[in-house]
């Protein structure tokens, strides 16, 4: 009888703890979160052949606005920051471009345009950036031919996503800064802005 009672109490104890743990964990999850958790990934999964001082490979890609955007259209007019991010609806990427979205003034000050590129298709990119509340800079799809531009910059990963990489290209079309970042971490904004400021000197 006593053993039965003890078992019952242990069962109750376990149930209460389980409920407490699950409710505590639940508080950390946003209701209706649409972000796919990738877990920790191989930090870098490509080898870029490009280096600072090289001519930046030209490209023309479709944007979510429906137009085509080419690198050469900024030649002689704007410095260009290309931000490759691995994939829509993933954790770090979703928390990278919205930061750039409130830093437009910093890009303007340095006569720079930001171009965001992923390997996702246009409808996916459209839905994802709408969820962010819209972005001021062009967002381009390198979906087809798949990863052609990421490949030309040497940042296409073996799973068809791209690295989390930043290229700064001056008005002459020369690469002035490359950061192929650990895919699991967000690059610091001030590093990017400091590199842009160097172009003014």
């Amino acid at each position, binding site marked *: 009888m*006593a053993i039965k009672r003890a078992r019952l109490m242990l069962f109750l104890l376990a149930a209460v*703890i389980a409920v407490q743990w699950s409710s*505590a964990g639940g508080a950390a999850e946003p209701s209706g979160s649409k972000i796919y958790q990738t877990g920790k990934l191989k930090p870098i999964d490509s080898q870029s052949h490009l280096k600072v001082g090289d001519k930046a490979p030209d490209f023309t890609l479709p944007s979510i606005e429906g137009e085509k955007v080419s690198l050469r259209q900024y030649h002689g007019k704007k410095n260009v920051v290309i931000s490759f991010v691995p994939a829509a609806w993933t954790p770090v990427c979703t*928390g990278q471009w919205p930061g750039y*979205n*409130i830093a437009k003034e910093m890009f303007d000050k340095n006569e720079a345009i930001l171009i965001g590129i992923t390997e996702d298709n246009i409808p996916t990119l459209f839905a994802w950036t709408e*969820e962010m509340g819209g972005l001021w800079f062009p967002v381009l799809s390198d979906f087809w031919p798949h990863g052609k531009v990421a490949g030309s910059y040497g940042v296409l990963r073996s799973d068809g996503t791209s690295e989390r990489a930043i290229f700064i290209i001056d008005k002459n079309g020369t690469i002035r800064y490359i950061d192929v970042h650990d895919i699991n971490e967000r690059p610091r904004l001030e590093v990017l802005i400091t590199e842009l400021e160097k172009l003014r000197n």
Partner: protein
Amino acid sequence: MRKTCFLILLMLVVFASSPVGLANCLAAAEPPVEGGRLPEINLPVPDNAEEKKYLGLDQESFFRIPQIKADVVIVEMFSMYCPHCQKEAPIVNKLYQAIQNSPALNGKIKIIGIGGGNTPYEVKLFKDRYKIPFALFPDADFSIHQLVGEVRTPYFIAVKINSDGSHRVIYSKLGGFGDPDDFLELIVKKSGLMEGE
């Protein structure tokens, strides 16, 4: 013997059922729970004299949240990279103004923000962009973020500070708080701030 076993088990169940019970002790890095305490968070005393005055700090280098001169402190865990935090920023400013404009609450309820994963540069950009009047603290290495259970953002925690320096969490929730006046009313109610007046 049987009676003792039964009593011990019963106490364990009661303890585990309480919001500050066993689950919390075992899971140290869970978000703060209402009725519980904040983890020990050390923040740098702001260089900005106005911010330091607002917080009523006597400390020179670091301080803990319950050392802020207030009856209630609302802590916003945010990130400048988080679009939801960006949307929430003007609403939090309205909350700040509502507190400042209330003779009964001015000085009693204070707000701070902690930018999880944000550098001082990123926090300053956020503060300037949204003209945030209260102190924001960078947490570049996510160390504070980890102490509060790696919550998603924005996440609001309200703490009641007692006259003896002790404190208890009275609100701990993910997401925007909605209407600032309603939220303020809720915080006043939960803190018992106006009771007996």
